[in-house]
């Protein structure tokens, strides 16, 4: 009855990758004190630019171009929140709204059509994981023809944790998010750290978008991101802003995404109308957020405009 479990895991891994990369982006931004609701919009920019990059410079180039364009787009959020002190959520909402328009415009410019690119874009070489891909009961399918990006995303937990907890940049980043005044009093310039963090978050969301456009799908399509940027945000809250716990949260939401694709004939789920099966990822997110949000602690200065050290 679970014949599709292997495929469900494979899909879950793909969505895990998108949610984890984007969630890590949010983590850098929010740990520096800048709330980033604009992840969804940055991911949208990543999808359209990744689809363009892959046609011209191949899969690696496509990922890099998504990364770059995401960072550039995030620069707007950084300028608005850090330099102009716009409310972080207002700016993030506007970033998301504007992204739809920017993506359409770029699509028209690059592909000659406003809402999609041509299907059949190339992929990275897929991998079969030794041993695991031979698992019985169809489970092996989960580890066959994997995108290398899935493994890269899994392994990112190590460098990110190191960067955040073991380097000078990480310490400054975290202390900026907790107490920018104290950080500045130690002679650290707050604004450049926040700019770097927000651009890094845009870059990772853009990378996730590029992965979504031509690794998960084979072309760019409007509305492809289906709220994954917000689900990544929910995963980030659930993880208490920690890269290791984010791994688990992203896996949970990734699996919830896979249910409508592969497990709609599983027991109990089979009894629901198909429309209700499609609600599952969203409902899981709401339940998780409502159940956990009181038990976590966001960075103390997140969402607050820091007044010192700037002319405006």
């Amino acid at each position: 009855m679970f014949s599709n479990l292997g495929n469900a895991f494979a899909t879950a891994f793909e969505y895990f990758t998108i949610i984890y990369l984007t969630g890590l982006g949010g983590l850098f931004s929010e740990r520096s004190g800048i709330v980033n609701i604009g992840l969804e919009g940055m991911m949208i920019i990543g999808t359209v630019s990744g689809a363009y990059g892959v046609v011209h410079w191949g899969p690696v180039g496509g990922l890099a171009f998504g990364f770059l364009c995401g960072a550039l787009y995030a620069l707007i959020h950084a300028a608005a929140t850090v330099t102009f002190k716009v409310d972080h959520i207002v700016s993030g909402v506007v970033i998301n709204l504007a992204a739809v328009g920017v993506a359409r415009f770029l699509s028209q410019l690059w592909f000659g059509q406003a809402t999609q690119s041509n299907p059949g874009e190339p992929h990275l070489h897929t991998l079969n994981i030794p041993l695991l891909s031979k698992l019985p009961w169809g489970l092996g399918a989960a580890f066959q023809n994997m995108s290398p990006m899935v493994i890269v995303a899994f392994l990112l937990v190590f460098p990110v944790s190191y960067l955040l907890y073991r380097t000078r940049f990480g310490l400054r980043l975290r202390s900026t998010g907790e107490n920018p005044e104290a950080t500045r009093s130690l002679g650290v310039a707050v604004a450049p750290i926040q700019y770097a963090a927000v651009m890094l978050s845009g870059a990772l969301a853009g990378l996730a978008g590029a992965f979504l456009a031509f690794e998960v799908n084979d072309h760019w399509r409007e509305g492809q991101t289906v709220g994954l940027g917000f689900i990544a945000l929910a995963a980030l809250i659930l993880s208490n802003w920690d890269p290791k716990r984010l791994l688990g949260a992203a896996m949970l939401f990734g699996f919830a995404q896979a249910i409508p694709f592969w497990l709609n004939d599983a027991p109990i789920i089979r009894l629901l109308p198909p429309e209700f099966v499609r609600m599952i990822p969203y409902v899981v997110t709401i339940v998780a957020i409502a159940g956990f949000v009181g038990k976590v602690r966001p960075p103390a200065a997140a969402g607050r405009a820091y007044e010192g050290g700037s002319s405006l």
Partner: protein
Amino acid sequence: MATSVNTFTARRERLTELLMQVVAFMAALAFALGVGSLIILGYHDSPIAVYSAVVKFSFGSLDGFSRMLVIATPLIFSALAVSVCYKAAMFNIGVEGQYLVAMAVATIAAAHFGFLGVLQFPVVLVFAMIGGMGYAAIPAVLKVKTGAHEVVTTIMLNGVAVSLVAWALRGPLKFTDASGAFNVNLRSDLFPNSAMAPNLGHLLGVGTDVPLNLLLPIGIGCSALVWFLLKRTRLGYEARAVGSSPGSARAGGISIGAVQIKVFLISGALAGLVGMQQILGLNNYLPLNYEAGLGFTGIAVAFLGQNNPFGIIAAAIMWAVLSRGQDAILIETSVPVEIIIILQAILILTVVIAFQVAKRQIARRRLRLAGVQDQDFDDADEEAA
């Protein structure tokens, strides 16, 4: 701090501040149009020709003007819904889902309550508002009871709403008045005339083929009601107190959670009216391929109108002129219609930044006039909102 200055100077100050906001808006508009001009020049067309084609399309004829107002009407409801929440420092990103659910709930009354006669139209509107309120109650209660941020929950509920409406149209609301083979597109039953929004076209002399109807005056009336609610009622005062300074509000004996839920419900009721133009004005049924996205556009319109109920009417008209301009550009110029979308995107980004800069300048000015040093203008910044 303003108590020391007399009324005359206070009024002059207010005028100066208003002027600063106008200047900020004009600067943002000029910037957006400037960037748009560069793009248009890139396509070897004349910016003036393109912009005047856009403006003429909505203001050149009475027919064009009323069609523009038809587009603006749902945006007024949508932006009002966003702004009511925003005044209490909450973000209703869920207007989108609320109006979808409201359309489905209103369809029940519109399709089946024909016996009500002239009373049916108002009853349908009440059903729509109840639908919107009911769906807005979920994020409101979750926020107050669990602390789940409304931005995340409302976005997720938007996704749920799409599936809910799809399910309703395949099941309980599915048409019964035609054979399945005849109807390819899924829709509800057709509504009787008494459910429809009364047409006002004849008042403007454009005829009844233009769906200019009672919903526009209702939208303007709602703007006035929202203004009254925020500025002249106890709940409005409490909402603004919670929005600008939750700490002081709590110290002042305001129950923050109760205010937040009430405000969210009002926002949901307004959101419920967003979809009425398309089911009671443009169509006489709920189709599966309904127009989506009006909730998100409402956010842009609310910020463009500075979350002021009357500013929102102007902003909705401005947005509608631009949206309608896409057709003008398609017909009359060689520029891709996406120029309008990028123009709207740049405009909303620059407007938000320009207003923020103006707001801070105003806060500084107030402090300087009150003889306070610049150092702690954090609080005054909040007050200027």
